[in-house]
């Protein structure tokens, strides 16, 4: 069809030379640059754009802004499909594809509409009263039906292909809304030199100035807005952000600077984002002062058939006519509670659109308006109400009630004006409560968040001159408060603009359904039912009827509902109260909150200095916190991981191996009191460790449970270096800083993380010493006598500092060698080269794990935050001579209970059987109940040395039960295995190999 009949030939902010084509439900239409999807649809004569949530009633376009509850469409297709997009804010672009929602098979004929016939049953909360029998039917029958019927658009299951990003901004003055008030505020604050950010959700600045026939200093409102924007863009410290919605206010700091969340729709007006551009950008704006100039939203009137396509908000009708050059109707009527609706009469007339009648609820509208109507030949119904609108696919008739007389008028459009609601949501996000204003019959901002002021309609001052005046004053005040010199406050001459907000909530006794929440199909009858059933608090009303829970968050519905509840309960509206607005102000894509933190970028990846070398030797890496570690190094021909890992273990124990252990936490601890400090951190003593020696330490939380373990070396009188587990490195650092700064500030201790400074490799196995002697070439004597087990040294090699430790996790003679990380790559290559002739191989975290289990060393699975030193068989380390963190509470009865599960080793009785970590210990033949639970298997490994599966576990009275047989019960993985309790040290119990 041709849209021409619905387009005015001139006027508006659309570019008639730039036609854009788009599709809706597969049919092609055209609009112009400057259109929204909504204005383009109206301009093409499309009235029905969606179906309602519950009754599937045909719905059209109600508004011209982000508060639209009806005109929700699916935008784009495939992975970019966007459900529930408000056509009123979707900027038209060439090739835009859109579909209507919540209908089947088609928008025109929707089977879901049978719900309308069942509407006598489908009242508010009906589902709480039924679908209960038979019980088993809920998930199988009732719920799937409900779930299919509910919901609006369809989301894609494909990954969102677009990019999102986050950015931070700081300013002296944040101005929310670029209508007359916001522009005036920005001009004054900007001229004063303040750093200003001016945000508007629209793609053109000006707000109402673009929608009304208003003049400022003789220029048209829209033209004035262009000039203001131009001046603002010329100011260095002013940033104008169009297509940017400030959606949330968050907590402030001591300075009063407050964080605001804002969403910039960078590419939504394009078919695809430009190269290197995100789809949307999440701004975190920190502002010293804030001016809320977000305007106001017009209220619908609750009357019969008020949801019919063609029934629109009066001010939105003006917007479509004046800004978009669209004729929403050929023959219209206006239903208003006050003067405001009359502006629509004159604007429609000026655009050459017939206005059949004005229905004014007031008995005596102002004479001036009456004469104006007379001049236009428009009938006036005073003291009258519209009680019904007919025409499911676009109204064609309305019924007007004056007293007891009902008259029918044939019109194809009805503009309604029930008053105005200031957009005050952002004043309540951090706890402020709105205040009721009798003057405009609406809630206006009450106590404001510190640093925030309100200007214009957002504060209830609806007229243009007031908006400009308040905006300019607020801008000047904010700039002054931010420390900028006062500037003269400009004055602007404006055309006559009286805006009244007179309450007209509800027309009672209508012959057909009167809707309060259009999207959720909440009617006046539902409010009455909720009242009868005792759901009278506005919060209970909201939850029971879902009033105000739709995608518009009640912008067009909540207050009307509360007014009806007030009337029903004989209370005033302020007594009834209002619900709390919560962020976001308008819905925000989840992808925007995530930014680029998705996929591999979800969290940063930490790579060791030896990573490049490792990549050349294996593809198998495992996440260890944020680190990637080589898991094993497969050789050609090896069938599976077990074969590779077993080979690595055997090679280490027979000749030698090298493992990158750089990820372990390393903390440099210096200061005169470093030793004393460590004595208070660890359960054992470190002040007595000689320089050049290493000691294994265990630290507790203050509640007495084990926190972490590791070796700490003494490099000098006042210098130690501590190692932590990879997982706990950051936690231990924070713990030490707490002890140093908060608990014992009198101690002279300085601590610095050196995890990143040193690349560190373990060289384990009988040939480890030979390898190092070959590599270091006599820089140090490594003979047992000179460098025994638990020795450490700092040396220089080829002009590079080295640290050498004689420690072992594998139970073999072993060393750890540390070098500044920039040389880590060179060192691992040198180590492998030097080790080749000794059959030294690289090994990964799996082999490391196997060997530590063979030796009964505890690790993450045992250090799980619920074990004590004694549980781990390390109770003897607890020094009686000194206090340390956790010592006292470790003495609580339950922590000393001899029944506590304690570390043991376990082996399957059938040596070929497999063990599973997480299996629970039961006495053989005991019932599988929690009451009989005696502990569990913490870690398992296949030991190539013992040629069978072995495990560590925590078993009640474990150490006294070596030799006992138990069942390792694992119904969810692997089933049951009969095991024998043994010492946790499976391999080389005497520890002879340590010394080579």
């Amino acid at each position: 069809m041709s849209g021409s009949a619905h387009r005015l030939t001139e006027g508006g902010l659309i570019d008639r030379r730039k036609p854009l084509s788009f599709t809706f439900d597969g049919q092609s239409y055209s609009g112009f640059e400057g259109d929204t999807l909504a204005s383009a649809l109206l301009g093409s004569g499309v009235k029905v754009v969606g179906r309602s949530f519950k009754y599937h009633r045909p719905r059209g376009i109600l508004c011209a802004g982000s508060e639209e509850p009806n005109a929700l469409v699916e935008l784009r297709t495939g992975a970019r499909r966007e459900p529930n997009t408000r056509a009123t804010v979707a900027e038209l672009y060439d090739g835009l594809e859109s579909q209507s929602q919540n209908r089947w098979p088609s928008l025109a004929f929707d089977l879901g509409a049978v719900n309308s016939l069942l509407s006598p049953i489908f009242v508010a909360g009906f589902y709480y009263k039924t679908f209960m029998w038979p019980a088993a039917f809920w998930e199988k029958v009732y719920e799937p039906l409900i779930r299919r019927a509910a919901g609006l658009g369809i989301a894609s299951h494909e990954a969102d292909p677009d990019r999102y990003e986050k950015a931070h901004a700081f300013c002296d003055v944040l101005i929310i809304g670029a209508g007359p008030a916001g522009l005036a505020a920005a001009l004054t604050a900007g001229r004063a030199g303040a750093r200003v950010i001016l945000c508007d959700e629209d793609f053109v600045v000006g707000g109402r100035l673009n929608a009304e026939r208003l003049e400022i200093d003789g220029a048209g409102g829209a033209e004035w807005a262009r000039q203001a924007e131009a001046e603002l863009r010329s100011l260095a410290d002013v940033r104008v952000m169009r297509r940017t919605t400030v959606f949330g206010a968050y907590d402030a700091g001591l300075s009063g600077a407050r964080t605001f969340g804002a969403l910039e729709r960078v590419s939504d007006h394009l078919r695809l984002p430009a190269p290197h551009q995100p789809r949307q950008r999440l701004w975190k704006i920190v502002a010293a002062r804030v001016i809320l100039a977000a305007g106001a939203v017009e209220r619908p009137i609750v009357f019969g058939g008020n949801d019919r396509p063609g029934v629109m908000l009066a001010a939105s009708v003006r917007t479509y006519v004046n800004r978009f050059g669209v004729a929403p109707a050929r023959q219209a009527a206006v239903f208003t509670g006050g003067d405001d609706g009359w502006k629509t009469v004159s604007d429609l007339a000026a655009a050459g659109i017939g206005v059949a009648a004005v229905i004014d609820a007031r008995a005596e509208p102002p004479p001036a308006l009456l004469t104006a109507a007379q001049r236009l030949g428009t009938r006036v119904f005073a003291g009258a109400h519209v009680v019904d609108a007919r025409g499911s696919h676009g109204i064609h008739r309305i019924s007007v009630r004056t007293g007891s007389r009902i008259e029918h008028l044939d019109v194809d459009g009805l503009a309604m004006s029930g008053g105005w609601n200031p957009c005050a949501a952002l004043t309540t996000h951090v706890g402020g409560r709105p205040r009721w204003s009798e003057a405009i019959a609406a809630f206006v901002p009450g106590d404001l968040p510190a640093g925030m002021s309100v200007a214009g309609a957002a504060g209830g001052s609806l007229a243009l001159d007031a908006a400009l005046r308040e905006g300019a004053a607020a801008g000047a005040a904010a700039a002054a408060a931010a420390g900028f010199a006062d500037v003269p406050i400009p004055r602007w001459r404006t055309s006559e603009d009286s805006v009244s907000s007179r309450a007209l909530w509800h027309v009672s006794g209508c012959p057909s359904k009167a809707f309060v929440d259009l999207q959720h199909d909440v009617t006046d009858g539902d409010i009455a039912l909720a009242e009868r059933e005792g759901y009278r608090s506005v919060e209970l009303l909201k939850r029971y009827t879902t009033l105000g829970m739709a995608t518009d968050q009640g912008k067009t519905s909540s207050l009307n509902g509360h007014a009806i509840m007030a009337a029903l309960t004989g209370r005033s509206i302020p007594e009834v109260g209002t619900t709390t607005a919560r962020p976001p102000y308008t819905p925000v894509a989840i992808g925007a909150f995530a930014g680029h933190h998705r996929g591999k970028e979800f969290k940063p990846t930490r790579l060791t200095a030896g990573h490049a070398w490792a990549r050349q030797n294996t593809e198998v890496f495992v996440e260890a916190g944020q680190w990637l570690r080589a898991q094993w190094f497969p050789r050609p021909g090896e069938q599976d991981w077990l074969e590779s890992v077993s080979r690595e273990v055997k090679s280490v124990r027979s000749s030698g191996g090298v493992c990158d252990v750089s990820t372990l936490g390393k903390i440099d601890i210096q200061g005169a009191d470093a030793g004393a400090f460590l004595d208070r951190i660890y359960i054992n003593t470190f002040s007595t460790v000689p320089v050049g020696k290493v000691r294994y330490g265990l630290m507790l939380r203050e509640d007495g449970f084990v926190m972490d373990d590791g070796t700490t070396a003494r490099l000098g009188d006042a210098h130690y270096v501590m190692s932590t587990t990879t997982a706990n490195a950051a936690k231990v650092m924070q713990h030490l800083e707490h002890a140093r700064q908060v608990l014992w500030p009198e101690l002279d201790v300085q601590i610095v993380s050196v995890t990143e400074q040193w690349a560190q490799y373990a060289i384990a196995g009988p040939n480890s010493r030979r390898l190092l002697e070959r590599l270091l070439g006599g820089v140090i004597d490594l003979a047992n006598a000179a460098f025994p087990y638990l020795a450490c040294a700092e040396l220089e090699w080829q002009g590079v500092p080295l640290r050498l430790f004689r420690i072992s996790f594998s139970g073999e003679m072993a060393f750890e060698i540390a070098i500044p990380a920039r040389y880590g790559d060179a060192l691992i290559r040198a180590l492998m080269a030097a080790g080749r002739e000794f059959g030294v191989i690289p090994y990964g975290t799996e082999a490391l794990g196997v060997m530590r289990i063979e030796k009964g060393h505890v690790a993450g699975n045992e250090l799980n935050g619920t074990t004590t030193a004694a549980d781990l068989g390390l109770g003897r380390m607890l020094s009686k001579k000194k206090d340390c963190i956790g010592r006292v509470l470790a003495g609580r009865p339950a922590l000393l209970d001899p029944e506590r599960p304690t570390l043991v080793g376990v082996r399957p009785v059938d040596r070929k059987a497999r063990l599973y970590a997480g299996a629970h210990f039961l006495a053989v033949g005991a019932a599988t109940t929690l009451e009989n639970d005696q502990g569990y298997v913490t870690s398992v490994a296949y030991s190539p040395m013992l040629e069978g599966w072995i495990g560590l576990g925590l078993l009640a009275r474990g150490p006294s039960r070596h030799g006992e047989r138990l069942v390792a019960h694992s119904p969810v993985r692997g089933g049951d295995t009969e095991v024998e309790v043994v010492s946790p040290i499976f391999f080389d119990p005497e520890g002879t190999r340590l010394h080579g």
Partner: protein
Amino acid sequence: MRIRCPFCGERDLSEFTYLGDASFVRPDPDAADAQQRFYDAVYLRDNPAGPFEELWYHGSGCRGWLRVRRNTRTHEILGVEPARRQGADA
């Protein structure tokens, strides 16, 4: 929420980690009733609704432990000082 670090200046919440009640004083471990005192200090809380002294760690900044006075009803920050007693630096 923004916390004014005495060294770094006012920073976003995301740079800090929280420990809790700053009134914690490590009891005398040698006291006869040490276990009761530690239980009290480690486990029991006033948990007030209103002004509250609490410990925050500026882990993404100067790694300083801060004593923050904050209203738990409104999240208003009332004051911040280093947890480390100044004497130690003199």
